[in-house]
């Protein structure tokens, strides 16, 4: 029981983190029609910035805030210097150019921080276990991630659905020409959206940093998970990304935790321990395959243009 609840929350926490990443990706794709592989690099940069700023200031929250700001600025610079010129080009061009950016970022990180990973230690007040149910404790930090991510998801939802900027964003997503014709500064809007996406990726990276090691290439594996989420959820749909992210986070976490035991019930224990790691890492891709067969457009496709 204890294990189930704990793994369930771990799955939720991982899923929400994936959502932060996927939301930025899907926003940028839905609005600017830009496929940004370097989104994972922004996640990585968020983590590196956090590790650096926290060590520098000696304060976790302050360091995290600085890192968030730094990723936002980095995103904006990236958009203005490079990605802006890719709008309207084919997707293949996007893939290639942003692939180049990944090479660049990975190498730049190696140059600046060295090839070894960094650790981002948590302050003591975030490491205490918190009772969530009578007799069941859960690490405060993971709980904090869940709360922060849910809060961000809510803000994002309200922001996109209720505010003027959000309306512009939605209008841009469904009718690019119109928004231009209304005399809205579309360049600025795009830059802001990209910055927002970058900040979300950075937030995901810096929050994940204390749980995993901060290392080169950390953004790439998780980026592919974000792709899977977008495919499952439907491109351009924030709601789809949210549900798919939580779903994928759960399946992945629970699969890894419980599949070996399940297999052991059916197969011999050697066969099970051979098959389990491969099978549990396949689970989400199988899920994606099923969604593709049933709903090629994803579960919640955004309004088609």
């Amino acid at each position: 029981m204890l294990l189930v609840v704990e793994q369930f929350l771990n799955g939720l926490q991982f899923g929400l983190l994936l959502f932060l990443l996927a939301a930025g990706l899907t926003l940028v794709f839905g609005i600017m029609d830009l496929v940004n592989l370097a989104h994972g690099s922004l996640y990585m940069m968020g983590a590196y910035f956090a590790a650096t700023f926290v060590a520098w200031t000696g304060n976790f929250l302050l360091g995290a805030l600085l890192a968030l700001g730094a990723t936002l600025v980095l995103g904006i610079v990236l958009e203005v210097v490079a990605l802006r010129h890719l709008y309207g080009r084919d997707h293949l061009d996007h893939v290639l150019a942003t692939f180049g950016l990944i090479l660049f970022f990975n190498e730049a990180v190696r140059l600046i921080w060295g090839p070894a990973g960094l650790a981002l230690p948590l302050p003591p007040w975030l490491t205490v276990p918190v009772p969530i149910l009578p007799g069941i404790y859960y690490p405060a930090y993971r709980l904090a991630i869940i709360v922060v991510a849910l809060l961000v998801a809510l803000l994002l939802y309200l922001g996109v659905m209720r505010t003027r900027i959000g309306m512009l964003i939605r209008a841009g997503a469904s009718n690019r020409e119109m928004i231009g014709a209304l005399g809205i500064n579309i360049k600025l809007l795009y830059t802001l959206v990209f910055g927002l996406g970058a900040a979300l990726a950075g937030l995901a990276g810096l929050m994940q940093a204390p749980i995993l090691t901060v290392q080169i290439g950390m953004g790439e594996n998780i980026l592919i998970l974000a792709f899977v989420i977008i495919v499952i959820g439907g491109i351009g749909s924030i709601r789809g990304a949210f549900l798919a992210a939580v779903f994928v986070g759960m399946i992945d976490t629970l699969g890894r935790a419980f599949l070996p035991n399940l297999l052991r019930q059916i197969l011999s224990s050697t066969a099970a321990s051979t098959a389990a790691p491969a099978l549990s890492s396949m689970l989400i891709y199988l899920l994606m395959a099923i969604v593709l067969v049933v709903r090629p457009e994803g579960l919640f496709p955004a309004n088609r243009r």
Partner: protein
Amino acid sequence: MKALSVSKAVTALVLAGLVLLPLYSQLSGNIFILTLFTRIVILALAAASLNLIMGYGGMMSFGHAAYLGIGGYAVGILAQEGVGSGFIQFPVALAASALYALVIGALSLRTRGVYFIMITLAFAQMAYYVASGLARYGGDDGLTVYKRSDFFGLIDLSSRVQFYYLCLACLFGVVFLIWRIVNSRFGLVVQGLRSNEQRMQAIGFPAKRYQLVCFVISGTMCGLAGALLANNTDFVSPAVMYWTRSGDLMVMVILGGMGALFGPVMGAVVYLLLEEFLSQITEYWALIMGPLLLLIVLFGRGGIMGLLGRADRG
């Protein structure tokens, strides 16, 4: 018309260079260059297979490195299990790649555009994780191939020169096949589908099955490259399937010029030599390569073959 002859001349020069390379290596005693070019030739073969679906078929696969791994693991696993004959290893490598391509293609072709890119990428990553989970065959650390494929003494893969020529023959064979295919009935249909799928459906072609067959052919060809690559490095690991390798292959195709027959060969030669060259200048070569890719995308449409004034499609 002059530009046309320039591109042909350059292509011929490069091909002649590839054929004569072992001679140079022998005369100069530079063994390293032969090793380097064996790798280049094998990856050129992989890139050429990718060009078939990407350049001619318009299917932007971002998961082509999966076949390098599947072909490689077929050789490695069979060798580990005591089956050393290349006459078994290679057909198994091709068949396994074809099967994977069939399943992945059938699923991925349900979608298009960006979805297709993401899905082929995701499935290749799945293959990567599956390979990492193969504890019996080295898992993350990979699998050493202690003995190269044995072709009953017909050809000795342990001889650098013989192996190089085998790879080169495979490359030329595949490029020849692709040339025939793209000009055949089948090839015209596939290219027509790239150009205007709605029109092709309206004149009576069911799009998916042609695209799927093309996808399978391409995957099988790349599986051959995988089997050769495992023999070349005497080693196969999940890393050959890593997505950056798929990205490398795409870059080679685009750098060379999509849909140009010899484009991928040129792309592979230039890209890998550039990588080699930059890594000799600085340890941080990707710091230059990355922005260079960006610049190529922004300013170098049509790739090398385009630059040489060749427009294969008129």
